[in-house]
């Protein structure tokens, strides 16, 4: 069986070492927080100026001055700190975050990331912090379904969508398999409801058996 979004989030959370400094991208990556083990010591960064972000805020704990990068109300954990946008992105771009987790339209076997634009001619470009996250963290984990709705693979020999960052993705977590990208190869570390050979047949990317 392929994984649900929740199961993918759980698997990503499992692979985050205790005590890591992590940035969770907008959307699906946000769910990873739900599966971090209590006491893991993982500290969340949000690029709008905070380390030590806590769970989403509800009802009377909602504070309009305390949001995550998706502009959703969040909370503050003990040991948190606030800083301005230039300091926050300096932290990211200076390579201080251990892991950043993002969604993607496409990832290439070389680790190129495309997740901000489908290149549609009438699209209004909007990038936010994606390009900074892509090149800033020590490791970039991508979470995505492996195949688009039309069945086309999203792990590709070379991205056809406009890039977010070059050679920046280290792992790809999908609903049917997990890949570690290194030295241009995609190593399959786990499969879910699909065999390695089936996977190899459906992807144009050379795969390495773990």
């Amino acid at each position, binding site marked *: 069986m392929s994984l649900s979004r929740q199961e993918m989030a759980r698997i990503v959370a499992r692979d985050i070492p205790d005590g890591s400094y992590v940035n969770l991208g907008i959307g699906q990556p946000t769910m990873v927080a739900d599966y971090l083990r209590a006491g893991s010591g993982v500290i969340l960064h949000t690029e709008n100026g905070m380390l030590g972000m806590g769970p989403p805020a509800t009802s009377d704990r909602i504070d309009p001055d305390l949001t995550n990068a998706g502009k959703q109300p969040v909370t503050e954990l003990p040991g948190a700190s*606030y800083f301005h946008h230039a300091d926050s992105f300096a932290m990211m771009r200076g390579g201080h975050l251990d892991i950043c987790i993002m969604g993607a339209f496409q990832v290439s076997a070389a680790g190129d990331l495309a997740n901000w634009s489908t290149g549609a001619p009438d699209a209004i*470009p909007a990038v936010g912090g994606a*390009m900074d996250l892509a090149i800033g963290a020590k490791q970039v984990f991508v979470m995505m379904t492996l195949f688009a709705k039309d069945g086309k693979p999203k792990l590709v020999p070379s991205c056809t969508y406009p890039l977010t960052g070059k050679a920046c993705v280290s792992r790809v977590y999908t609903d049917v398999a997990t890949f570690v990208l290194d030295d241009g190869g995609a190593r399959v570390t786990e499969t879910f409801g699909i065999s390695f050979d089936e996977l190899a047949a459906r992807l144009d990317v050379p795969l390495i058996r773990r």
Partner: protein
Amino acid sequence: MTATEMSALDAVAAVQDGDTVLVGGFGMAGMPVELIDALIEHGAGDLTIVSNNAGNGDTGLAALLAAGRVRKVICSFPRQSDSWVFDGLYRAGKIELEVVPQGNLAERLRAAGAGIGGFYTPTGVGTPLAEGKETRVIDGREYVLESPIPGDVALIRAYVADRMGNLVYRKTARNFGPVMATAAAVTVAQVSRIVEIGELDPEVIVTPAIYVNRLVLPGSAVRRTEVTS
């Protein structure tokens, strides 16, 4: 000079036609709503707006855009579910857009405030947003040259000011305020409270008074406007 307390309308009178205006905030957190409303009332046009987003719904920045006052937007993320005002103007060719990665936006504002003429950033290398820009390999890594973004006026929101103009912020509403304050010739800060000089601990001040020219307490601004109209 010590910052001067003013009504919102008096404060934004610093903005002239054709100016570049830096507008703080990330979503509603740190957004100087009353200053933007005053800017609409003030009437300056042909503006370049530098802000993280390009307006939401029909109020604030979106209303400024809808009023036809903005020639160009420099931002990281114009496209949102409720950015219909910007979307319409952009598709109609009535507004220019420069999309800047959020970290480059923050760093370019800092550079303007810090006297840096340009800097090499790793963000955007190999992407469409670096096309046509100078690149350079330094110690084996590729970088793009980016330039400062100075403003004529910054409109920001802080939490507490003292009468000298020192500012502290609140939680993630801090965001772009401190860098924008350094990057503009005139900085107007909308604050929730103004205290006497000496009441803020010198160790915790985030924006020193040297960067702040005008202070606006929204409540009092409304009262003053009513008195004079």
